[in-house]
C-alpha cells in the first residue's frame, strides 16, 4: 500500500510519464507497423480461415484485447479510487474511458466488416459475443456521460466508479460468451486453458501487434492523465485567484 501511495503522487507521475510516454509511443508505433507489415505482406494466407480475409485478425484481435483490458483497468482504477480515494486513480479511470471506447468501436467495426464475407452478415442481434461487446461500448459511453452529468468532481468520480465496477462483470461474459452461448464467432484460439491453438507464424505477429496496441494505448492514457492533472491545477489556481481578488 505504501508503494501504491508513493506512485499515486501526481508530481512523481508527471516526472515518470514525461519520459515513459514518448518511449511507449515509439515502441508502440514500431510494433504496430511491424505487425501490419507481417499481417499484410509476410504471413501466408490461410484458406481454412477464408483466405486473405484472415489478415483482418492483426487489427481486430488486438482491438478486442484492448477493449476488454482497458475496461478491466478502468474498473480496477475505479476500485482503487473508491477504497483509498487516490486522485490519480480517478484521473486514470477518466482517461481510459474515451480511449477504451475508441478501441471497442474499432473491434466492433472491424468484426462487422470481417463478418460480411465470412458469415454473410454484418451483424447478428442474438449473438452473445457481438452483443456483449456492444454493451461494453455502451458502458464506456455511459461512464463518460454519467461523469459529465454530475455537478461536482467528487460526485462524478463516485458515480463513475460504481458504474465501472459493476460493469466489470461484463468482461468475463465477453471472454466466455463463445463457450457458454451459441455464437457465429469462433472459439478462443490464443488465450485458452490448453495454450494457443494458432500456428506460430500467425501467433507471433499477433502477439507483437497486441503489445504494440497496448503500448500505444498506455502512452495515450498517460498523455490524457497529464492533461487532466494540468486542467485540475489550472482550475485550482483559478479558484485561488478568484478567492484572492
Amino acid at each position: 500500500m505504501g508503494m501504491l501511495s508513493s506512485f499515486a503522487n501526481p508530481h512523481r507521475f508527471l516526472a515518470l510519464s514525461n519520459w515513459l510516454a514518448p518511449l511507449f509511443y515509439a515502441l508502440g508505433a514500431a510494433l504496430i507497423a511491424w505487425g501490419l507489415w507481417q499481417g499484410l505482406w509476410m504471413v501466408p494466407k490461410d484458406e481454412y480461415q477464408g483466405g486473405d480475409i484472415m489478415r483482418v485478425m492483426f487489427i481486430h484481435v488486438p482491438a478486442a484485447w484492448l477493449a476488454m483490458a482497458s475496461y478491466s483497468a478502468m474498473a480496477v482504477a475505479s476500485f482503487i479510487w473508491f477504497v483509498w480515494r487516490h486522485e490519480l486513480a480517478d484521473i486514470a479511470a477518466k482517461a481510459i474511458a474515451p480511449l477504451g471506447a475508441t478501441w471497442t468501436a474499432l473491434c466492433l467495426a472491424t468484426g462487422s466488416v470481417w463478418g460480411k464475407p465470412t458469415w454473410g452478415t454484418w451483424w447478428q442481434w442474438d449473438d452473445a459475443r457481438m452483443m456483449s461487446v456492444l454493451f461494453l461500448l455502451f458502458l464506456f459511453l455511459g461512464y463518460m456521460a454519467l461523469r459529465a452529468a454530475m455537478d461536482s468532481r467528487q460526485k462524478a468520480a463516485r458515480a463513475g466508479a460504481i458504474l465501472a465496477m459493476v460493469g466489470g462483470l461484463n468482461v468475463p461474459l465477453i471472454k466466455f460468451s463463445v463457450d457458454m452461448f451459441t455464437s457465429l464467432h469462433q472459439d478462443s484460439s490464443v488465450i485458452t486453458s490448453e495454450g494457443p491453438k494458432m500456428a506460430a507464424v500467425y501467433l507471433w505477429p499477433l502477439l507483437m501487434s497486441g503489445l504494440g496496441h497496448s503500448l500505444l494505448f498506455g502512452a495515450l492514457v498517460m498523455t490524457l492523465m497529464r492533461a487532466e492533472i494540468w486542467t485540475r491545477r489550472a482550475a485550482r489556481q483559478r479558484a485561488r485567484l478568484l478567492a484572492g481578488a
Partner: protein
Amino acid sequence: MDAPGRAPARQIIGGRMMDFLPHLDKNAAYIWACYGLGLVLIGGAVIGVMLKARAAKSALERMNVSDEDAS
C-alpha cells in the same frame, strides 16, 4: 511532360504503388476497409489526445502568468 513511347508518369507511379501493395484475393476491399478504420480511429485518437494535452498545458501556463501578475 511524358516522353513519347513511354507510359504517362502518373501510370508509372500508380503501377509502382500497386506493385508495392500486397496482392490480396477477392476480399481485398473488406481488408483495406478494416485497416482504414484502424487508421482513422487510432489516428484520430492520437491527434485528439495531443490537442487536448496541448490545450491543457497552455491553459495552465496562462494561469501561471496571471498568478505571477497578481502576486
